[in-house]
């Protein structure tokens, strides 16, 4: 074998073998030794591979849907660290903590290493032969599954995985691809689509002079936090923009606000209307606003808005005043506004402000059109899952394939997904880690980790133009028994439709062929190989696209009707989404468990956030174990006194409380999904995440809250974080 015709796979294989033995700088050897450790030679490496010097490979982060370009530092056949890829417009060389932790997902000791099959007494490891046999028997050419009898349940998915998956379903004459994400933005997207004509408008944060955010944690658990953070940094440079955040529980973004207002959950829309009322007093803004809007807004004068929202009347006026003084501004709605029975209306009312303030085309635009809509990301929410649940419960569903989502863990207690799964005769999970849902399946297939597999991705949020993100292996696979998601699907497809797919020996060649075929669209004139190599080297294929214009359909405006408190359940319950845990799928990553949640600095746990005033009234001290009881269930967690929360509200973080997902996730904290009230958005039917009402009960127990901060979280007169009035700063003179 000569050097020339060695392809990438071979190269990685050679690396892998030698790398595995080179192992780590360790704790062992503290003296000069001879003949103890082994040193392996490369067999036939590429010329640029030098032991002791790291090589960076570009790839794509799959930890969340943001699709950041990353670079993996590879040394002696091991991927050591991830950095942001400067070629990618999304991450621009930066990376978040969640993304960094992908290497821990890859090296996680609890990764599934062999296929598992259900027998009496649970899942037992089996060989791939057996697993393939079962797959073929159920899904192979002889399978009689048709249409909705087969269901493919996935989380957020894009790129060629999506295409292949849809082709796979097509071979059963099915389009039954069910998408479910526990923390979905379906309501917000629907509302944006309704008002502006775009599900996810482009937010030009850096161009705004003032941002008014209704519960949107765009710097933390938002849609593209790394990109938004970079935009935010520009926004804070001269001339410095102002950020006003309105939300019931202070998020990471709220912590960065120039002014933070606590609001009663669910009244965000009313406040938006109140601000609109104030703005429409001015002719400049009133122009072109239809009469029906005027009529609707009229009833929301400052006094009534203040009463409903709990925000002072002068504050409403102040916000409105700033909005008209600082143009262009940007008004963003977020999960805090969306997760209510009238969440759709809330978002519509909030987006109305953007229209009134004429921000369209300046700070808010439509995303560039995608040249390959079949690769675009798909998202789904609760309603899709509920429908699948019904189908499964009625016995309609004969085979269920699950990838990238964990409904058994994230579904609220009114949707007992585990129960309905029992009605499905054949359930397959494609996972890297055995989670709660996979634990209920008949066949669990170990996937390659994101560091080992090929793939293409399209980001949920595309800042400039369009990018096709390329994911490539950073090292040889750790476990010979694990396989790529695409490879498994392709194998079944090959059996079912040999004519169309035998040309592809594996998923890699499938992607390569597909991408190279799309070359003309990207207006590249290079040779195929060169184009492909360039794509791998950069990790991203760019396509120039122009932002599109947004519409303004103001007629959709409805009156949001916030749900008040009840005597039995005197607190609003706001589940908070941690930027690193998201819906809980990352709870098995020790770095993230140990990384303090910034607002509370608590680690390895779940907790209940209570405002000091409320805590004083109820005589709750930090560390008191509380029972949080809703109409549908209860959980126990320690109390944490937290000033950044509306006093009638308690908040708990999502993502903990796993019963399965490896040693780092199980037994840590509790799962608040299970106490969510079955309240649905009136318009989209999505589960309203923030609409639960709870009561608190003290158990009399007190535990040490494991957190990073000490007994004080004030500076006590030391100049640690100094604050300066933005007016006095001379930002333009700075470098």
């Amino acid at each position: 074998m000569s050097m020339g015709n060695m392809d990438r796979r071979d190269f990685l294989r050679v690396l892998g073998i030698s790398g595995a033995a080179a192992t780590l700088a360790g704790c062992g050897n503290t003296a000069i030794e001879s003949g103890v450790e082994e040193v392996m030679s490369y067999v036939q490496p590429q010329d640029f591979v030098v032991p002791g010097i790291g090589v960076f490979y570009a790839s794509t982060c799959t930890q969340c849907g943001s699709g950041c370009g990353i670079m993996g530092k590879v040394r002696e056949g091991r991927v050591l660290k991830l950095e942001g890829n400067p070629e990618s417009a999304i991450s621009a060389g930066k990376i978040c903590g969640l993304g960094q932790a992908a290497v821990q997902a890859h090296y996680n000791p609890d990764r599934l290493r062999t296929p598992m099959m259900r027998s009496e007494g649970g899942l037992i490891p089996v060989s791939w032969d057996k697993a393939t046999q079962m797959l073929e028997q159920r899904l192979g050419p002889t399978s009689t599954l048709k249409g909705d009898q087969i269901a493919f349940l996935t989380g957020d998915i894009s790129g060629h995985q999506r295409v292949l998956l849809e082709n796979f379903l097509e071979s059963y004459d099915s389009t039954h691809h069910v998408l479910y994400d526990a923390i979905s933005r379906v309501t917000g997207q629907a509302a944006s689509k309704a008002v502006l004509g775009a599900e996810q408008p482009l937010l030009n944060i850096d161009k705004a002079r003032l941002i008014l955010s209704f519960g949107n944690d765009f710097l933390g658990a938002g849609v593209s936090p790394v990109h938004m953070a970079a935009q935010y940094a520009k926004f804070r440079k001269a001339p410095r923009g102002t950020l006003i955040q309105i939300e019931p529980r202070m998020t990471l973004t709220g912590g960065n606000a120039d002014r933070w207002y606590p609001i009663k959950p669910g009244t965000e829309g009313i406040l938006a209307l109140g601000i609109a009322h104030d703005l429409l007093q001015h002719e400049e803004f009133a122009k072109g606003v239809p009469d029906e809007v005027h009529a609707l807004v009229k009833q929301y004068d400052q006094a009534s808005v203040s009463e409903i929202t709990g925000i002072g009347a002068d504050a409403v006026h102040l916000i409105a005043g700033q909005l008209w003084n600082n143009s262009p501004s940007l008004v963003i709605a977020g999960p805090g506004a969306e997760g209510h029975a009238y969440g759709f209306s809330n978002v519509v009312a909030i987006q109305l402000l953007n229209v009134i303030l004429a921000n369209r085309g300046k700070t808010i635009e439509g995303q560039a059109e995608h040249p390959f809509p079949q690769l675009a990301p798909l998202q789904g929410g609760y309603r899709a899952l509920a429908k699948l649940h019904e189908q499964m419960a009625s016995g309609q569903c004969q085979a269920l394939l699950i990838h990238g989502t964990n409904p058994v863990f994230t579904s609220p207690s009114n949707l007992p997904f585990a129960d309905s799964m029992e009605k499905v005769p054949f359930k397959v999970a494609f996972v890297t880690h055995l989670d709660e849902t996979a634990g209920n399946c008949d066949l669990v297939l170990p996937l390659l980790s994101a560091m080992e597999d090929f793939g293409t991705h399209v980001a949920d949020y595309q800042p400039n133009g369009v990018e096709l993100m390329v994911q490539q292996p950073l090292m040889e696979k750790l476990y010979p028994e694990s396989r790529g998601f695409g490879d498994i699907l392709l194998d079944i497809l090959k059996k079912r439709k040999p004519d169309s797919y035998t040309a592809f020996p594996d998923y890699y060649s499938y992607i390569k062929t597909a991408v190279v075929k799309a070359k003309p669209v990207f207006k590249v004139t290079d040779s195929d190989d060169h184009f492909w190599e360039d794509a791998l080297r950069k990790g991203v294929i760019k396509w120039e696209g122009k932002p599109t214009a947004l519409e303004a359909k103001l007629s959709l405006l409805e009156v949001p009707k916030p749900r008040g408190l009840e005597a039995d359940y005197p607190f609003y319950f706001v589940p908070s989404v941690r930027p690193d845990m998201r819906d809980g799928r990352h709870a098995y990553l020790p770095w993230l468990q140990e990384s303090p949640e910034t607002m509370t600095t608590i680690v390895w746990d779940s907790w209940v956030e209570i405002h000091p005033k409320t805590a004083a009234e109820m005589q709750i001290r930090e560390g008191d174990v509380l029972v949080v009881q809703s109409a549908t269930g209860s959980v126990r967690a320690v109390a944490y006194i937290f000033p950044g929360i509306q006093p009638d509200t308690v908040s708990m973080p999502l993502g903990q409380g796993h019963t399965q997902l490896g040693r780092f996730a199980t037994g840590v904290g509790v799962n608040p999904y299970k106490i969510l009230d079955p309240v649905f958005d009136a318009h989209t039917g999505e589960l309203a995440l923030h609409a639960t009402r709870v009561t608190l009960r003290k158990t009399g127990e007190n535990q040490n809250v494991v957190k990073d901060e000490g007994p004080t979280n004030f500076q006590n007169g030391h100049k640690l974080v100094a604050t300066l009035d933005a007016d006095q700063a001379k930002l333009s003179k700075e470098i």
Partner: protein
Amino acid sequence: MSHTVPSHPQMDVQIERKFVPKQKDLGEDVNWAQINKDVLRSLEKPRPAFWIIFFSALALFSFGVYCEVYQYQTGMGVSDLNNPQVWGLYIATFIFWIGMGHSGTLLSALLHIIHADWRKPIYRYSEAMTTFTLMTAALFVLVHMGRLWQFYYVVAYPNERWVWPNFTSPLVWDATAIGTYLTSSLLFLYMGMIPDLAICRDNAKGARRALYKFLSLGWQGTDRQWGNFKVAYMTMACFLMPLAVSVHSIVSTDFAVSQNPGWHVTSFPPYFVLGALYSGCSGIITLFIVLRYVFRFEAYMTQPILNKLIKMTFAIAMVWTYLDLIEYATTWYGSDEVARQDLVYRATGDYALQFWGMIFCAMVMPFTLLIRFVRQNYVVLLIISLILNVGMWLERFQIITPTFAKSHYPWTWTAGWWPSWVQWGIVAGSFGWFTMLFMLYCKIFPSVSMYEVKEMVHEQNMHDKLHGAQAPAHQTALGAIPEMNGGKI
């Protein structure tokens, strides 16, 4: 008879007082042969209490060893020390033990220089106490080390790494000072013991005789030996006194050179030295009472000597109290806000109990020494002397823990940090270790200096010969104030 009441009782008292002579430190019935007999007996057959004390100490020490082995194997984490609270009881107890040693030197060196003869019956065990407390303190230097197995990095010797310890570190000064102090007081103790070892050699049999013979180096008590011995002993005493002062000043620089609030105090060196003398003196009183009972030293450890010791202790306690209050005062009126907050925190924060405990034990309790009953009742005195030492230990705890709990950086403050059982175990073990060593020493070596008590008797006799006994014959030194409880406790 029943009607005859003295018309002027006060007169009587005044008259009686005229005849109370200056008490002599030793009884007149003590002669040279008797001294040999009494002291040598202590090496043979102590009271059973000796064995009780010795084996309890051994048990405590074994537990301490267990704790240390556990900590060594598992890591320092078992002590519950953490990032701001890096030292905990280990360094607090370290200072305590170093301090304990200082009074031994005061008695053996300073009082020797100024020819205070009453020190003679009690200086030997005090000097031994110094040596063993230093050994105990040195243990804590090792115990608190995260990598005990690399302790030799601290020692300055030519090595294949070509690196030296950091001579600017107060810890290295500590090591040097303690090393010097330990070496010097060990030599001082040994040097002073040579004539007594010769006595033991002359009276012992078997293995003990071999030991004493080896250790006494062939001392014969010739005039040449005595002459050199006296000069050398005095010279060493002159070295030891400033050394003792320097050692605890250097220990205080561990804290005083740092910027931590409550540590960055100019008056720390004298404050530490006085604190050391204070705790040492009360330690000597404790051991005085214990030895007197266990080894039947009633004839040598007499009430007049104890009285002088108590007076000295009280005086030192008052100076220490003054320095402590001055420290608070300068902090309070100073411009360092952080240090002031630290002071307030000590008095009112998580460790207020320990703070006020220290004030009570170490500042209020000494005043009970003014009561004659306390001075004469050995049981009460034993308890009081122990309380004083508890107070001094709390003082060291006060220096370490609250400062770490609330230093310059608010984020790392700790609330109510408390050491784990491992730390307590090692501290308890150190008390066991000290008591065990000390008791063993007293069982093997003469804990009362025979030749110096002989000198004392000799001088007392010479004095009487020259000036005649002033006291009426029936009022001997021991008779003047009857021994309480019949000399028993």
